[in-house]
């Protein structure tokens, strides 16, 4: 027993000694910031270290470190991934792309990976204000108000600029997905009065549309535990009068990705695209999606 006491005592001291300090994070973030390029993405392992990464990256990158990076819906179109890690963890995203570079700053390791990096022709979240929206038969108006709300259990906060549709809104937000991850996306709750439509008049089309969708965690969790009771939510993508594809989100899917191949004859053209959300249920269906129109390799 006496040796065990010594081992536990020394072990506790070792745990403390191995903790990365704030300077390690800052030096690593500054090194990354010095090489930061448009199209770079960042991740950290383990996930609980994310606030430390964001603090350091915010300090190093300033306003360039925004929610499109911190709440990225996926890596589609990103060209490089900076993977921070501590305590010997590896990010699950390290399976993406190819290894380029690795450096260690104190107890923080940073690996850079080259991603396939397809050309981003159009980002539907970034260009949301260029769209028009209808809810059922009713047109929605683009309004500019102070972002409001917030608090435990209060749900996602909409961007200051959003479409106002009577009692509901369509707008950019960051939801917490089923695994508590941030997902920057367009909130489009299904309506009890018919479909909800977001229309972009002039979208350049390339090889594919890559979409991601999910529900705010509370709505999805309530319906998968103890049983699936939430109605599926459908998102249809229509170019002019032609359906390009449809995705269906069911409770338990979490934040899921969908790829819609663009028909050959539409590639390289500009088309009006409509995104139509429908569900048999409107309450507790905080549907949110993000997507990009992607070309080939840049």
């Amino acid at each position, binding site marked *: *027993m*006496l040796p*065990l*006491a*010594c081992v*536990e*005592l020394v*072990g*506790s*001291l070792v*745990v*403390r000694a*191995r*903790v990365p*300090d*704030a300077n390690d994070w800052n030096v690593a973030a500054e090194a990354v910031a010095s090489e930061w390029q448009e199209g770079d993405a960042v991740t950290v392992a*383990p996930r*609980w*270290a994310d*606030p*430390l990464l*964001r*603090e350091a990256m*915010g*300090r190093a990158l300033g306003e360039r*470190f*925004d*929610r499109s*990076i*911190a*709440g990225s819906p996926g890596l589609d179109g990103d060209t490089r991934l900076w993977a921070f890690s*501590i*305590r010997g*963890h590896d990010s699950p995203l390290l399976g993406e792309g190819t290894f380029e570079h690795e450096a260690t700053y104190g107890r923080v390791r940073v690996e850079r990976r080259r991603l396939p990096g397809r050309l981003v022709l159009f980002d539907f979240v970034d260009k949301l204000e260029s769209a028009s929206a209808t809810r059922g038969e009713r047109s929605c108006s683009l309004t500019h108000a*102070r*972002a*409001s*709300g*917030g*608090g*435990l*259990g*209060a*749900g*996602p*906060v*909409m*961007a200051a600029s959003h479409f106002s549709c009577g009692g509901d809104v369509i707008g*950019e*937000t*960051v*939801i*917490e997905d089923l695994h*508590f*991850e*941030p997902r920057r996306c367009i909130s489009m709750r299904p309506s009890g009065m018919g479909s909800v439509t977001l229309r972009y008049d002039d979208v350049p089309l390339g090889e594919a549309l890559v979409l991601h969708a999910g529900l705010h*965690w509370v709505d999805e*969790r309530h319906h998968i*535990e*103890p049983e699936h009771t939430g109605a599926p939510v459908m998102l249809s993508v229509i170019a002019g009068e032609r359906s390009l594809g449809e995705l269906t989100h069911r409770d338990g899917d979490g934040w899921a990705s969908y790829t819609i191949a663009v028909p050959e004859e539409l590639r390289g053209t500009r088309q009006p695209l409509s995104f139509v959300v429908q569900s048999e249920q409107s309450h507790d269906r905080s549907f949110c999606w993000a997507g990009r129109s992607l070309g080939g390799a840049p």
Partner: protein
Amino acid sequence: MRTALEHPARIGPRDHLIGAALTAAYVALLLATSSDIGMARDEGFYVEAGESYAGWWRLFLDGDESALEQATIDRYWSVNHEHPSLPKSLFALSWIAEERFHLFANHSAAFRFPGMVLSALSLWLLYLFGARAYSRYVGLFAAAAYALIPTVFYHSHLDCFDGPIVTMLTWVTYLYWRSLTQPRFAILAGVAYGLCLETKHNAWILPLVLLVHFLGFVLPAELASRRVGHRPRVNLRPDWLIAFALLGPPIFVMLWPWLWNDTVQRFGEYAGFHFGHTHYNTQYLGTTYFGEPSPSSFPFVETLFTVPLVIVVLAVLGIAMRFRAMLPPGTLGIWPRGTAVPDVRRTDAMLFGVMLAPMVVLAMPWTPIFGGNKHFLVAFVNLALFAGIAAHRVAVVASTELKQHARAYAPLAAPFVFVLLLAPSIHETEHSHPFGLSHYTWIAGGPPGAADLGMMRQFWGFTTRSLTPWLNANAPEGSRVWLCDTLPTSFEMLHRDELLRRDIHAAYDMASADYAIVHHEEHFNEVDYQIWMTWGSPAPVHVLTYDGVPIISVYANPHR
């Protein structure tokens, strides 16, 4: 030192002095370190209740007859009536004493002091219990081991019920145990049970545990003993249970003015609250639980991860050493090896049962999820006793070895073993302060290891206190802070205790605040994302960490 566990020396005034000294020393330590710990969420509720009850107590102590009228009682006692009144009455009386005599260093210490004393009294009890049942060494080690469990140290500070109920449950168990051979203790046990009921509803299950012990162990053993002609040693009439039944409920009602009117209906309301208790969100081994089924391994893994490993291993060894004595009467043959013999009161079985009962209740899939280990701290009392038994054995072995090889040092063996076995506990407890709820021991990998394993980071929003140096140094004059999980009363206490600049205020609207904080619990992540949307930036300006693990993120409003 004595080598035998059984038949300890007569316990006398000197032992009570030791118990009193342990209690006093612990209270002094708690008082000295109290201001480092911010008021937890529930403490804020109990401060509000304490201040309200104090209003009634002032009337009552001044002899105002209106104090006994229902309208007056309801006015003061309706607050927080989901919990009994004894601890909150003591918080109220302590607050009145502070108002009149300025006894404490700050306001929160005044509210917390009764909780500290009630919690620390468990050490006195634990010492006496161990000394009477096994040896003084066992009692002393158990008291120290319990006091130095990091979460026990944390909870013992608070104006809450979790420390006090441990003392009450232990006191009732101790008096029950004594009443088995000395029936006069039954009356005291009944009184103690009334006070226990009046402290927290954990008291409800104790009689059942003791009844199982009495009917399953004590009674059959005594009957078998008498059948072979031995003289009576144990009182076969359950005087303790009669006393529980006759004295418990009246004391419970008498000390709780809210129950003086509409007693049955109000008791139903009180009981209904706990029978229909909501689930608390709890992160455990990588999963955040929101409802049934409660993970059955939770209390056991939580014990392994929050009690210093040496104490856990000692307790397991102590249980193994005494296992033969825990067997039900007539089954000793299934464990023929060993020398442990059950005493007439079947002490080992009782301690094991009282240790296991709350953990088993919480392990049931249908039990509401409470999270943390505060609801089974009483298990740690008994765990510490078993650890003491093994520690005693280690000391005996060390002493014997030294007598053979270095006789001059033999007298130092027992204190050396005592200190060395408790060294990890001392270190862990010292280091855990003031992040007691975030602390995990070495076997879990410390706080970062526990974060890797997906264990709960904190609850109650009390860590805002640890931000005050940063806020005091960085927040511009008149800043408003959105508080996340910190109760406004708890935040205001930072002002009352002069720990936070008076010009820094709480904000109740995130968008118009100057700062917003997020207490890191997995299901609170949504608050981070709300702030990103409200203020535009996902980057906190400061992250409060404990061993490198984020505890609170602070965001600054760029538009302020």
